């Protein structure tokens, strides 16, 4: 056998290894979703969604957790969206290369790498204790807003950077001011990319458990929160609580709640990917 032949065999062999590795990843994904579906699907009905928590697994529902998740989603969007987008605009449009912008850049990339549980410690001290918000929805949402801010900033910057300079120059040429150019030209042109980032960030916030546990979100909340200052629980925490109980009924509940949580996450991610693709097609500079 000559070396060329052996090399071709090795080449084919690695192709097979790569294919198997890829299929393995996809298989795990399918298996995971399938397993959760199998365990939890029959548990999901209107009662499961409308019921309050209970000691009996067959009576327990996710009403309070779902309400908490919707609140968190809403509040986190309100806080993080304007802050993230305006920081992105500032970094991309207003700053010249300087020590300060270098610092901001390293800072944002560092914040993106800080483990989520550390944000929980920050929220516990700053929002929970210093601002006296305790373990309220507001404290939780503010904590998560800081957590997802780097995601929004980074995607906003990328979207703005993709807008060609000629558009900017044309707008200036017509006598528009800097802010008019940004507001009338650059933001509309980069909106698709920015929205993608926002949706991905919010979907991340919806799935977070650890920082909210540290801030003090409770596993058992008898009523749905009615104001941002109320105590709360969210779907991931409810799932965590059910997983930690020994009775089989609760792990079925956990699977059912996971199914709902995954549906929410996948829908949000799907919308984000769709927006990104549509926007890329529309604005092929």
């Amino acid at each position, binding site marked *: 056998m000559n070396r060329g032949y052996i090399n071709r065999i090795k080449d084919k062999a690695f192709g097979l290894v790569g294919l198997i590795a890829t299929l393995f990843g996809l298989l795990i994904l399918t298996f995971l979703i399938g397993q959760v579906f199998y365990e939890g699907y029959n548990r999901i009905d209107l009662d499961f969604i409308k019921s309050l928590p209970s000691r009996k697994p067959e009576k327990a529902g996710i009403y309070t957790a779902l309400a908490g998740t919707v609140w968190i989603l809403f509040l986190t969007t309100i806080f993080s969206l304007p802050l993230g987008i*305006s920081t992105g605009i500032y970094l991309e449009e207003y700053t010249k290369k300087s020590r300060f912008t270098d*610092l901001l850049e390293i800072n944002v990339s*560092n914040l993106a*790498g800080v483990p989520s549980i550390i944000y929980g410690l920050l929220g516990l*001290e700053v929002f929970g204790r210093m601002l006296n918000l305790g373990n309220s929805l507001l404290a939780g949402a503010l904590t998560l807003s800081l957590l997802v801010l780097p995601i929004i*900033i980074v995607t906003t910057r990328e979207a703005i950077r993709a807008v060609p300079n000629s558009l900017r120059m044309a707008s200036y040429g017509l006598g528009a001011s800097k802010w008019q150019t940004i507001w009338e030209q650059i933001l509309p042109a980069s909106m698709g990319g920015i929205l993608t980032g926002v949706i991905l960030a919010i979907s991340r916030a919806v799935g977070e458990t650890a920082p909210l*546990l540290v801030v*003090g979100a409770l596993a058992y909340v008898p009523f749905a929160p009615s104001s941002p200052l109320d105590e709360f629980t969210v779907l991931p925490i409810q799932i965590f609580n059910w997983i930690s109980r020994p009775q089989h009924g609760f792990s079925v509940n956990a699977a059912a709640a996971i199914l709902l949580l995954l549906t929410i996450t996948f829908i949000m991610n799907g919308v984000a990917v769709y927006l990104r693709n549509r926007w890329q097609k529309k604005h092929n500079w």
Partner: protein
Amino acid sequence: MTQKNKEVCIELVLKLSGTITVLTTFGIIWVLFSESFSFFKEVSIVEFLTDNQWTPLFANKRFGIMPLISGTLLTTAIALTVALPLGLSIAIYLSEYAPKRLRLIVKPLLEMLASIPTVVYGFFALMIVTPFLKTILPNISGFNALSAGIVMGIMIIPFISSMSEDALRSVPKSIREASYGIGATRLQTSFRVMVPAASSGIIVSVILAFSRAIGETMIVAIAAGQQPRLTLNPLVPIETITAYIVQVSLGDVPHGSLEYKTIFAAGMTLFVFTFILNNIAFWVRKKFREEYE
């Protein structure tokens, strides 16, 4: 208000929101330092770093962080053992072997693995992977580092595969074609030309995955146990830094007590680890980025 004033005001508002990110960093460092500082007034830093027991919640309190660090590194090592070969094979396969259409379908699907909330992975580890491991290794505990580590590895596969694939694909085509031109196979081209050319991006992806695994919380809190233990045995319950913070948060620890301060000392240790790793990644990316024209 004139247009000029309006512009200045807007710039100021934007600048202020930019400062929030800086304040967040200062906030994190300040919170961790100040609480850790008052922790180290009561516990010597030598004991913290060298004692081999971590029992702040027991009557006989010992404050050695080593068992938590060993638990963290053990699960992380298992995760990387799973994710590195798989993630890199996938990256090379998708960039060098797979047809374009397959890549366009598979990549977003694999990225779904990264978008799944970690509490779901915890469920997967505890309810499915651990029982499965029990059929192979009958003496494995119900909570163990192995199951949590494997599942964490699956979670970080897309971090490595996606970022490494991006790095491989940003190497100019001409380099790949030159390699084919002198008769190299795809395998030779991959490992002798493409991987070295994309090495900085690949290294960054691995470091970031490493950092992500160290900070991962819910999988280990659910499936690895709550027993700080200085061991390399993956079959027994252990506790990671993150799982300890969760354990204390779930309990009723009064604010200002020594137990309360332990989570900040533990958090500080975690922060130092991830901070160093993230900065190495940032530095590698800046310093060794191959620029092709």
